[in-house]
């Protein structure tokens, strides 16, 4: 029996795990965006603070994911075994690329265009929403793209703390020393990552050429 047969025979569970996987990634990305975008915008003109926050986010990024999942389990409120802990950890990983690209994207907007916008009588809010964010959009989207692909990968490890997702097959396959089972988790996960990368890449290119 090869992995493909295994996949077909268990397609119910595979689909269920895939949906779980997507759900975890989506929840983590939603949190990371909800925090990262406003925080990044707020940090654009606070250069020193920005450097510190990015440094901290960088450090978080270097913690091995299994360790981070482990660290979070005993934390009250967010901790425990299950999806919520995994989502928090995933959001922490996704935060750095989003934060960094929000800052660099907005900082990179041509200062002359911003001065022009101010000179025409736009309020700071209007400059942000109508000029800075649209012009930074391709860079912002690149950050979101990287964060999404990273999350799809790391989410496979979330199965270790009982969060579900396609990692369930991988861990089960490792325990059973069965490559077919491992592949039944790994291949859909890889496909998900490629699809997310491709889809967001298309959006990104469309924004860049607008």
């Amino acid at each position: 029996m090869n992995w493909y047969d295994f996949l077909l025979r268990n397609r119910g569970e595979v689909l269920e795990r895939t949906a779980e996987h997507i759900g975890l990634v989506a929840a983590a990305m939603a949190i990371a965006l909800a925090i990262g975008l406003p925080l990044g915008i707020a940090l654009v003109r606070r250069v020193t603070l920005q450097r510190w926050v990015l440094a901290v986010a960088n450090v978080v990024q270097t913690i091995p994911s299994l360790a981070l999942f482990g660290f979070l389990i005993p934390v009250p409120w967010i901790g425990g075994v299950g999806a919520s802990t995994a989502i928090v950890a995933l959001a922490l990983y996704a935060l750095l690329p989003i934060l960094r690209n929000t800052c660099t994207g907005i900082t990179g907007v041509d200062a002359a265009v911003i001065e022009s916008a101010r000179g025409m009588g736009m309020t700071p809010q209007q400059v942000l929403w109508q000029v800075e964010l649209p012009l930074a959009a391709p860079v912002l989207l690149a950050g979101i793209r990287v964060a999404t692909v990273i999350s799809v990968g790391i989410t496979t490890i979330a199965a270790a703390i009982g969060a579900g997702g396609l990692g369930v097959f991988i861990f089960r396959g490792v325990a059973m020393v069965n490559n077919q089972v491992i592949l039944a988790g790994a291949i859909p996960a890889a496909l998900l990552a490629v699809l997310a990368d491709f889809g967001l890449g298309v959006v990104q290119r469309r924004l860049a050429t607008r």
Partner: protein
Amino acid sequence: MAQPIAGIQKGCALECRGVTYRLPSGTALVSDLNLTVARGETLVLLGRSGSGKTTTLKLFNRLLEPSDGEIFIAGRPSSAWDPIQLRRGIGYVIQDAGLFPHWSVERNVALVPQLEHWPEERIRARVKEMLELVGLPPAEFATRRPSELSGGQRQRVGVARALAADQPILLMDEPFGALDPVTRAELQREFRVLASRLEKTIVFVTHDVREALFLGTRIALLAGGRLAGVHAREEFLNATEPEVRAFVASLQLSRGDEEVR
């Protein structure tokens, strides 16, 4: 239908009293400017590259704040104006056009009327009118991006944008600098008629003496961040300041093509 914008009424004046602008490092870009711009007049700020013309314009719409001295707009110190309201009341042509690269020509021109919440059809009609005025047929140009225009075309869109909301004060930073001589002469002629008809208070920056003489009711010469002399158009050619003489001399050197024009 035209609403008075931001409380700036037609025919108001600008004034600089002892205005100096210094960089944080302490270097003065303009020093001790004393200047009035009367209602409805076109004051030309003439000066060589780097003499502080753009800096002076930005002081008028509070993109820069004076380090010393005070600027009055319509009799009120500029610091007493809300900067947003003030800028909405002043049309501004930026030296290198400063268009939004992510917006169409149409939308760029419509910017200030849109900020001022004009009704849709009025904006559309106005944009069309302005594009025709600067010689860019709307059918061909309205939906293009700034990146799809030549430098001179971009500059004309910048002029259209500054005129669109029909503000009583206009700051124009070398608005015709990137144009070929034929188009430039056309726009200069058109602009002179417009300026006298609409009674706008205009500060017009250029380094072209002929343009200054053609458009200015008065000419203020900036040299090294200081005013070297302010003269009525008729007196400019006979002024005695060495800086003015140098500009007049450059005019005589190019007499030949003056006659061709």
